[in-house]
């Protein structure tokens, strides 16, 4: 063991849901916690409404183009919670019985909707998640609900972590919430972790992990330039007894791959079974006159809709296909979504195009109708087809632009199951929105940057079978005791709904095991912190579960 390296008890890699939740509980329990976050530390007043490269917007997230799949992820203190849309539904019951590509139940036997519900409750309390009312629904959500109803379907205002008394419906959620309406981790778990002594170091990108002679870990990092992420401003090493990996499903397996020469063989499933949560986007161009005629829509100023720019991400989803009696790959949700210009507009295709569909003369004509666009987000059951190739020299991708854009080594070749599910969901979106001439619809093209996910999952997943899961059912990396993975990479497969709630609940569930492992290594830490605001009802429900989550 080096005598010069810095030391901490618990080193957390990443500060999104998986990292922040672990950092809070372990710091509150008495451990010395250090968090390394590759992105900058932006606070509410730093969040600009500005698409210019180099503004807080492009500093806060990361777009990595792979082979057949591109990932949009968070890159800042607070991780994905800063750039997410705060939709927080629980996963449907059938999800936990999915078999996916392995032909048998992919989730650990210990995890089901029933066993996860108390942990969902904890997250619900911690982030003030609430069911929205129709009065909270944006114009876009209202239009989607009206269209669903018109075609004989139901529609649900989403459960969200948003304080609607503060929300101004600016639709800049992907740039961080300037108004502190969105319940990102910057306003709950992270300040609570800091209050208990956790130290957060932004712009620290982990390169690899090695082992000390006495079974602890050394975490090697580079310091990233605060504006141009292509540049490095130093490097260092921290020793820790426990490592919690939460760098995101696009980065956690890459760090582990790069660590293999130092740590020894990784479980087979590290960097395999990646899922894009089955995501896909359709762009509808609404006929304004039809919207008024069919549904009586009126914004009070002569406009029926023309409100693409207004709102707060997704507000309404259709759940009619979330039916557990249906066969796998035929279940999905359809959610109204806002996607800002710049990040995907190029992938929207012209319905009935006679020439090029994603660029050119006809594309420009639909860009002129941008305010009448309605974006629908499909989340199907995919086949965990993604595999990460050899890791890049640093980070999780070869960085191209000063921020935002990189080229990664993820390969994703959709199977017939995935392609069929996408086709079915596309067809239903078309059926709903083209009924009686309301709109013209086309899915985004996959030909340019592959499929596109904002919810990467499963690249280092939990399970019971060592062959197909990198983690045991308590999130510990197989054969590497003391390394835990608590981010989206631990989730075994696509969820058919937005995954932040499930990632957070699984992270909450992993904490008792991490505390026990820390205690076994001599760290003076206990389990039992309340919610970040001091609320205790969630804790009451989970304390009886501890014997099922700690090793005998």
């Amino acid at each position: 063991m080096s005598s010069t390296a810095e030391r901490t008890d618990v080193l957390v890699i990443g500060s999104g849901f998986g990292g922040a939740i672990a950092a809070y509980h372990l710091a509150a329990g008495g451990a010395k916690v250090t968090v390394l976050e590759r992105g900058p530390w932006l606070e509410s007043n730093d969040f600009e409404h500005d698409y210019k490269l180099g503004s807080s917007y492009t500093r806060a997230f990361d777009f990595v183009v792979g082979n057949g799949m591109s990932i949009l992820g968070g890159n800042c203190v607070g991780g994905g919670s800063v750039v997410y849309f705060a939709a927080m539904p629980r996963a449907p019951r059938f999800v936990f019985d999915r078999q996916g590509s392995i032909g048998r139940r992919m989730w650990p036997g210990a995890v089901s909707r029933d066993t996860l519900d108390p942990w969902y409750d904890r997250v619900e309390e911690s982030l003030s998640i609430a069911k929205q009312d129709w009065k909270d629904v944006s114009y876009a959500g209202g239009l989607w609900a009206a269209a669903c109803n018109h075609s004989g379907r139901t529609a649900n205002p989403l459960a969200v972590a948003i304080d609607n008394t503060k929300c101004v419906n600016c639709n800049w959620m992907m740039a961080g919430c300037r108004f502190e309406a969105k319940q990102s981790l910057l306003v709950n778990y992270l300040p609570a972790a800091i209050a208990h002594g956790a130290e957060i170091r932004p712009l620290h990108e982990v390169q690899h992990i090695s082992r000390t002679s006495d079974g602890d870990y050394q975490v090697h990092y580079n310091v990233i330039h605060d504006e141009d992420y292509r540049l490095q401003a130093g490097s260092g090493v921290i020793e820790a007894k426990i490592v919690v990996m939460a760098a995101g499903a696009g980065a956690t397996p890459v760090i582990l791959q790069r660590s293999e020469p130092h740590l020894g063989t990784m479980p087979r499933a590290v960097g395999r079974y990646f899922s894009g949560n089955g995501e896909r986007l359709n762009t509808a161009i609404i006929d304004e006159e039809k919207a008024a005629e069919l549904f009586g829509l009126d914004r009070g100023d002569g406009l029926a809709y023309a409100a693409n720019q207004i709102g707060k991400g997704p507000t309404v989803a259709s759940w009619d296909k979330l039916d557990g009696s249906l066969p796998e790959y035929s279940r999905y949700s359809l959610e109204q979504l806002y996607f800002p210009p710049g990040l995907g507009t190029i992938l929207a295709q012209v319905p009935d195009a006679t020439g090029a569909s994603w660029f050119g003369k006809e594309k420009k004509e639909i860009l002129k109708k941008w305010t009448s666009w309605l974006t629908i987000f499909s989340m199907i059951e995919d086949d965990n087809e993604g595999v990460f190739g050899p890791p890049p020299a640093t980070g999780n991708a070869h960085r191209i632009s000063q921020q935002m854009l990189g080229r990664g080594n993820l390969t994703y070749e959709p199977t017939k199951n995935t392609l069929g599910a996408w086709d079915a969901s596309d067809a239903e979106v078309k059926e709903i929105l083209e009924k009686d001439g309301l709109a013209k619809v086309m899915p985004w093209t996959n030909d340019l940057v592959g499929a596109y996910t904002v919810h990467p999952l499963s690249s280092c997943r939990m399970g019971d079978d060592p062959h197909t899961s990198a983690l045991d059912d308590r999130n510990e990396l197989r054969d590497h005791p003391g390394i835990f993975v608590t981010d989206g990479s631990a989730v075994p497969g696509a969820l058919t709904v937005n995954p932040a709630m499930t990632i957070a609940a699984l992270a909450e569930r992993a904490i008792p095991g991490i505390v026990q492992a820390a205690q076994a290594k001599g760290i003076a830490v206990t389990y039992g912190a309340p919610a970040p605001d001091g609320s205790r009802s969630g804790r009451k429900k989970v304390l009886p579960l501890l014997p099922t989550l700690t090793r005998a």
Partner: protein
Amino acid sequence: MTLEAYADTIVPGQKRSPEDRAIAGVSTGGGAVQAGALELLEWDATGIHDGLDDLARLVNEHAEVYAGEQGLTLDPSVPPFVALEYPDRVALILRLTKPGHPEKDFWVMLSLFCNMSFDSAAHLHTAQALADGHPGLAAMGLSHPDADGLWRFKDFGYGREFARLHPDTTSSGSPA
């Protein structure tokens, strides 16, 4: 001139003058060129600024090959890609960006930034770009922010119930 022609193929605009060769002139109003595509591409923040000369050379080589295949005679007074008619420029970009093309990544990235110059003015502060009448943001109908540069929408929804809830919904709004 070659890169202007490429940008104009991605988001076409109207000619700046009757003599304008780079812009094909198949659309009215400003396109990617007027939106500042070259300014964005040449900014080192994009990471492709160093390779622009190579991309221009390559697309001209591809244009010559394409013209040969199609039996087209190109005007030698302008670069080969510029000499192509708009439908041929489109056809060549479709070929270069098709899955499996060995240079696809480069052409997709070039196209992406050309589009971004129009749809988000990624080289300009958004509020200022809007105030200055940026052709892309104006064409798309983006509204102007409040005086402090932030957007707020007081009226944001219809405020009424539009559909039945799914019968299996929990009290907190999740699938049961």
